[in-house]
């Protein structure tokens, strides 16, 4: 029996809210004896604050935001916990038509490296002509969007803090600001890249997958206090999310309409299915991104809270001066609760044996040690061929 029948979870309307929505709409939460209310939030900061003070039981969170709240890097410090990643991938970088034309003209090759090298040429030319720096938007300072964008810029020899101006905007306002010329590009989650492309406001030049294949993205986050008090409720939520993740992975294009039918996202369903069905025009030639560049909700151990993901993200915070100090391993273990994942999933699916994995080693599908059976994993290369050893 769950300790708490009525559970309030926060979400920000995005395509990757789908597992939470599906678990509710398909009755998987109800099967666990849970009545889950999904509360739509307009900002990540407010979503986080509501979880911190217990106004929400948990929420769909940006993985780095969960870490930054646990470290007290913005506002109050409170130990947050995730035992569940909600999915992999889902982000992309979109630029204005004029910037796109410049990149397409200057790029020596149609690759993520080619486009960022062209971007560097544009930036240098603007500097010589005393033009203001390019403005690129992300959704939150502590987000995978921020780190993917910065990673890609740095690979091209661009200093994200000096050579461009990075600003923060709500996802739903990105396209408008790009159209109005307030920004020159953005890194955001779906469906907002598709919306920009299909309305002619922008060109999607690089997917998140281009920068880091099967990168972590959102997690289910709770305060540690809440998890301690509600172990059965927590397990029930995870079991329901496991079923939901599997269902949506296998029925992606159909399942995604749950978001629009249920008015979780107020957009036409066609805008949500484009990137999921391999029809989103991208890169410098407009060749569509393959569907696997976008959401993975279950396969490749997408839901396992890999501690190497947390370590990588903390490393990015250090790299960009958001976090000082080291010996962060104890806090990684407190935030990413592989033990809670395993206790909820034992007997339901095979469990990874390790808590960490090296990133950047695999160009193809591979197998990781698991119990009782090995678990299948996806490619995990970085754009620069780097290898991350946790």
């Amino acid at each position, binding site marked *: 029996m769950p300790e708490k029948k009525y559970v309030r979870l926060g979400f920000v309307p995005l395509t990757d809210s789908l597992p939470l929505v599906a678990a509710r709409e398909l009755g998987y939460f109800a099967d666990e004896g849970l009545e889950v209310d999904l509360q739509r939030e307009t900002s990540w900061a*407010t979503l986080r604050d509501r979880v911190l003070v217990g106004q929400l039981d948990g929420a769909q969170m940006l993985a780095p935001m969960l870490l930054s709240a646990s470290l007290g890097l*913005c506002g*109050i410090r409170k130990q947050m916990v995730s035992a569940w990643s909600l999915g992999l991938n889902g982000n992309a970088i979109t630029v204005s038509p004029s910037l796109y034309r410049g990149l397409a003209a200057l790029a020596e090759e149609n690759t993520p490296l080619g486009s960022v090298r062209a971007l560097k040429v544009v930036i240098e030319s603007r500097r010589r002509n005393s033009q203001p720096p390019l403005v690129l938007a992300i*959704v939150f*300072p502590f987000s995978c969007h921020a780190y993917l964008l910065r990673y890609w810029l740095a690979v091209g020899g661009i200093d994200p803090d000096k050579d461009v101006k990075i600003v923060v905007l*709500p996802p739903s306002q990105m396209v408008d600001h790009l159209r109005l010329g307030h920004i020159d590009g953005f890194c955001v989650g779906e469906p907002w890249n598709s919306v920009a492309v299909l309305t002619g406001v922008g060109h999607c030049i690089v997917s998140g997958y281009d920068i880091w294949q099967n990168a972590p993205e959102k997690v289910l986050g709770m305060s540690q206090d809440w998890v301690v008090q509600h172990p059965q409720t927590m397990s029930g939520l995870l079991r329901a999310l496991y079923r939901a993740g599997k269902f949506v992975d296998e029925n992606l294009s159909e399942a995604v309409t749950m978001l629009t039918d249920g008015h979780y996202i107020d957009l036409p369903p066609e805008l949500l299915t484009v990137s999921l069905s391999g029809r989103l025009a991208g890169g410098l030639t407009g060749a569509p991104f393959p569907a696997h560049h976008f959401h993975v909700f279950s396969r490749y151990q997408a839901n396992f809270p890999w501690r190497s993901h947390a370590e990588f993200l903390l490393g990015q915070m250090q790299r960009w001066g958001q976090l000082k100090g080291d010996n962060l391993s104890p806090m990684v273990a407190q935030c990413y609760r592989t033990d809670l994942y395993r206790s909820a999933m034992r007997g339901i699916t095979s469990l990874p044996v390790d808590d960490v994995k090296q990133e950047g080693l695999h160009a193809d599908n591979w197998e990781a040690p698991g119990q009782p059976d090995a678990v299948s994993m996806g490619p995990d290369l970085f754009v620069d061929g780097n290898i991350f050893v946790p």
Partner: protein
Amino acid sequence: MQQPEQQVPRVMLVDDQPARAAILERALTDHGYLVVARLPSAAGLLAQVSQLNPDVIIVDMDSPDRDTLENMALLQRDLPRPVVMFAGSEDEEIMARAIHAGVSAYIVDGLQPARVKAIVNVAITRFREYQALRDELEKTRGQLADRRVIEKAKGLLMARKQLNEEQAYQQLRRMAMDRGQRLVEVSRNLLAFADLLEG
């Protein structure tokens, strides 16, 4: 003589509900603070912050601009530097109260915490009062609507069953008690049923 650090704290309000912002502005002014701007959204906020130099920014919790502010709070190069309030764990209680009232706040480094809390407390009180006022208004509206439904059902019974007003009311009450429903629900069902028969 006034010393620089004793200057009246300057407050900026970001709230898309003008009525609430106006109430808060008056309250802050009455408490001796200076409200330098009242903005419906954070569009152009950075320029406003540089120009008007507020010590505290009070923001509606539901504002989509909060993440933009959060980032400003972290950036050292965007002067002046608003920093997120409630940095210590002893502030958790006031933060909880603020969030429940729908208030979030950003302060510029250097303002004394006690003064910030006093400002935030004014905001919490006014946001709460405003919410209570709205709840009351909605309740009153709801009650008026309920009463109209009951009156209509009563009128229907009076016409159909040749009852006087008191008898019709008693009959409705009996039906409500028998079914364990509210008077307004019974009335609504009765009207719907009558509609159906006449439909």
